[in-house]
């Protein structure tokens, strides 16, 4: 017996673990794990360090000022911030409820045989590159949108200036027929974040324990009452988390917004049908050919703000989703 000849002991623990290769392997994998952390640190450092000049020059106050003219070194990021928030808000308003309804359909009501293919189709929607959404928006959706939605609505509302109606008034800086604007960007973003919200809603609804459903059915609830009171309310934290993740995606989305939002960088128009600009789109379109180091630094500062917002949003959302999916019960319905 070959192995009997070998000694059981003799080496010191540390030496032995190196001998067998376990310790080097562990440190190797740990090194690559640390590399992942390093990537995050690098991103944080770059946007912090790169924006130092702009921070020294303006502080964060310029985020709320209008006016953007790199030639005169005059920067005000409010149009970008407003455009980002408004388009993402529209996206969330549309995609939030729809996404939850889709999640409900996929987890509760869909016939079993359709679940996999439908989920796959919804996931495919998430897989299509954003530049194709943007192109489709420009060539197909905008003409349709202008003709059947934008023109009728702006005709109806006219030049209203009171607050809620002014959002739907005729734009001043560009004809409504140009189509590009915050509203259309919001709708395209809604289509893009719909699969995210739907998939997360589905995931958190599926893990709601079956006994919660039965409890409501047993007191004579209808199917929808069961879903609303038993399932959605049980998983509401997770659903909110999913919406926040979707919102985060919309805030950071660059290409689709860049292509359809117009490009009005100087001022903010009250109408949502008017063109605007989003933070990500501003950075993407100007950074490669920035005129001066201050211009570049300002753009990086906008990126820093965007990074900070999405980071906070995602941390909160993941906490919520994690809290729910880890929650009690967990016997997934067949």
């Amino acid at each position: 017996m070959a192995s009997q000849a070998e000694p059981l002991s003799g080496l010191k623990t540390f030496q032995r673990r190196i001998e067998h290769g376990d310790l080097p392997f562990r440190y190797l994998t740990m090194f690559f794990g640390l590399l992942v952390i390093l990537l995050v640190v690098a991103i944080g450092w770059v946007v912090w360090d790169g924006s130092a000049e702009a921070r020294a020059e303006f502080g964060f106050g310029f985020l709320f000022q209008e006016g953007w003219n790199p030639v005169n070194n005059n920067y005000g990021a409010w149009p970008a911030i407003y455009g980002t928030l408004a388009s993402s808000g529209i996206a969330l308003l549309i995609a939030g409820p729809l996404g939850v309804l889709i999640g409900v359909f996929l987890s509760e009501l869909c016939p079993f045989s359709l679940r996999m293919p439908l989920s796959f189709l919804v996931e495919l929607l998430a897989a299509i590159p954003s530049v194709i959404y943007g192109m489709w928006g420009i060539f197909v959706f905008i003409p349709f949108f202008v003709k059947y939605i934008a023109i009728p609505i702006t005709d109806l509302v006219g030049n209203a200036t009171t607050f809620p109606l002014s959002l739907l008034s005729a734009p001043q800086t560009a004809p409504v027929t140009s189509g590009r604007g915050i509203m259309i960007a919001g709708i395209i973003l809604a289509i893009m974040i719909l699969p995210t919200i739907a998939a997360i809603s589905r995931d958190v609804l599926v893990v709601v324990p079956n006994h919660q459903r039965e409890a409501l059915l047993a007191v004579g609830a209808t199917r929808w009452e069961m879903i609303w009171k038993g399932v959605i309310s049980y998983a509401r934290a997770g659903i909110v988390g999913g919406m926040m993740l979707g919102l985060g995606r919309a805030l950071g989305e660059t290409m689709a917004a860049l292509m359809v939002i117009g490009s009005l960088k100087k001022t903010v128009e009250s109408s949502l049908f008017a063109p605007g600009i989003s933070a990500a789109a501003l950075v993407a379109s100007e950074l490669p050919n920035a005129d001066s180091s201050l211009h570049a630094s300002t753009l990086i500062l906008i990126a820093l703000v965007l990074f900070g917002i999405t980071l906070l949003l995602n941390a909160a959302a993941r906490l919520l989703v994690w809290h729910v999916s880890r929650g009690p019960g967990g016997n997934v319905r067949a």
Partner: protein
Amino acid sequence: MADATKPTPDVTGSTGAARTNGRGPAETNNVTLEDLKPYYGSFQAVHAVNATIEPRSVTAMIGPSGCGKSTVLRCINRMHENIPGARVEGRVLLGEQNVYGRGIAPQTIRRRIGMVFQQPNPLKMLSIAGNVAVGLRLEGHRESEIKEKVEASLKGAALWDEVKDKLNDSGMALSGGQQQRLCIARAIAMEPEVLLLDEPCSALDPISTYKIEELLVELKKRYTIVIVTHNMQQAARISDRTMVFMVDITDKKPKGMLVEYGETAQVFTNPQDKRTQDYISGEIG
């Protein structure tokens, strides 16, 4: 055809304002199982069951695991069809009315035939009072009426004294036995005619079990009670009549079957069926 939007107290009086809750429904009927065959997809889980359950009594269903006793119980209030692919052949009669009749929505049946499950399942997002009131709220009762009924049901479930000071706390904060009694209160708040209990004590400690058994004996004065249990002593202690289910292993996939149904005393002392005798004496199962 009864007016759908208004209660018709003359039939069973589900919302009869004259009756206070906690006393049980004015009238209870036989529950008759006629050739009841539960299926999972194409697989028939239990051989056809024929039995009549007497009103205002406790009927126990016992048998080894996999014998289909829970399945049959869940067929009575149409909970069975909630599992994807599951369906039922045959009839369940509540009085004269077929539970599986055309045009009868399952929720109508389930509010008349209440159910308590193996695992206590208070609704996580609702308070103790909210849990009891949930079915009544769905039906749109007046808040004052609901408050009255919540108290009556909690008293009926022997839980009032323990929770009267914390009605707005979460139901999940109660102990297991209290949670199960809360579920019973939730079921009787709807004033069902029949109360189905699916191994209600299997997750509980002996003291909670004893309390719930006591409660069931009290409740049978007003409700028809059907209880599934794997504990033969429990069946012997509280039931008036007993159904014994067995696993039929002659087929490739084992099926459940009803082998004996009779007075509890007779089933336990003088079983007619050899398999029942073996089961009760502990030789199988």
